[in-house]
């Protein structure tokens, strides 16, 4: 397709989508109105199960099957990235990655913030059912905290802190724990992903039934998944192609 013809097709498509979207928006409920039928059902359901963070309740209790799918997408993507970015036969790991030393201020920043970020990440995962946060958010914070060591110029220390076989196993274990909690629901109540634990006292650490366990499982899977993916991208940066290669 020539470039000018592509512009014409694009223009027609954009105009069409624009008109359809505008018509849809004009027929939608008013922005900021009080009409929210899903909210009216989700909030009482969350309170019944003792979950203070209604978003967590929706994710890990009321619509946990969706989150299982999301978790599986994450797992599949990590697998695919690992498969796509494995070193080819004619590539070798360069011996000394990250020999450049960053600014002292940057190193201090990394050293100070890394433990702090890890603690915040664990806090966000564990309290995902009572405060804003949860396994997905906390998992990303945990992975970020670990990579602050790379920002501080300590790539080797970071590698020692995340032994890849262990991280790969914990990625799988997190995903498997999510599914296992689902099967526990079948065993106890006969429904997949049912919330089988007692709801506890509203707003406390031990509340919301199985939601905190789901959060920990997801936090483990997300943190390890991010670490695995970033490790594969790091490997690519430090790969060198052997001499005498035609392409």
């Amino acid at each position, binding site marked *: 397709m020539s470039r000018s013809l*592509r512009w014409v097709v*694009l223009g027609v*498509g*954009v105009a069409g*989508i*624009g008109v359809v*979207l*505008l018509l849809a*928006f*004009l027929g*939608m*409920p*008013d*922005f*900021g*109105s*009080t009409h*929210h039928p*899903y*909210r*009216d059902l*989700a*909030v*009482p359901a*969350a*309170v019944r199960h003792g979950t*203070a*963070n*209604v*978003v967590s*309740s*929706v*994710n890990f209790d009321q*619509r946990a099957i*969706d*989150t299982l799918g*999301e978790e599986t*997408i*994450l797992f599949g*993507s*990590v697998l*695919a*990235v690992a498969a*796509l*970015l494995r070193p*080819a036969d004619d590539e070798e790991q360069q011996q000394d990655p990250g020999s450049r030393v960053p600014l002292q201020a940057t190193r201090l920043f990394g050293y100070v913030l890394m433990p702090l970020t890890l603690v915040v990440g664990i806090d966000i995962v564990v309290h995902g059912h*009572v*405060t*804003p946060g*949860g396994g*997905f958010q906390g998992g990303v914070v945990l992975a970020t905290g670990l990579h602050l060591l790379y920002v501080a110029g300590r790539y080797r220390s970071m590698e020692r802190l995340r032994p890849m076989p262990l991280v790969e196993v914990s990625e799988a274990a997190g995903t498997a724990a999510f599914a296992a909690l689902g099967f526990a629901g079948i065993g106890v109540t006969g429904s997949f992903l049912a919330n089988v634990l007692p709801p506890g006292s*509203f*707003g406390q650490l031990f509340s919301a039934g199985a939601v905190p366990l789901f959060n920990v499982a997801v936090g483990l899977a*997300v943190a390890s*998944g991010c670490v695995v*993916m970033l490790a*594969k*991208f790091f490997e*690519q940066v430090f790969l060198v192609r052997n001499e005498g290669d035609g*392409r």
Partner: protein
Amino acid sequence: MNIYAYIVAGVLVVLGGVGIARSRDLVHAIVCLSVSQSGTYVLLLAIGFQQGAAAPVFGSTSKPTKNVVDPVVQAMTLTDIVVSATVTALLLALAIQIAKTHGTVDPDELTALEG
């Protein structure tokens, strides 16, 4: 009737699409896809918004009330963001492989199918 927020969402989705169509670089196309997906976050959050309502997180001081923004669309936005991040990582990995095997990341130069 106030549809300003919906329009912003629609514009983001369409702009991302235009960016992909006129892209000369696969990494640029992947970023454009992310822009397009951010439009869906704005749309979902705009649907759940209620004037003057609080966040759907209760505590010891804030007693449960129905006067909060819609938590269901917020949960969907979270799913959306996670999927977007993983898909972006996957596409970037593909872009790296394409750059290695074809020596270019310009979609227009990637004409032939190659094993």
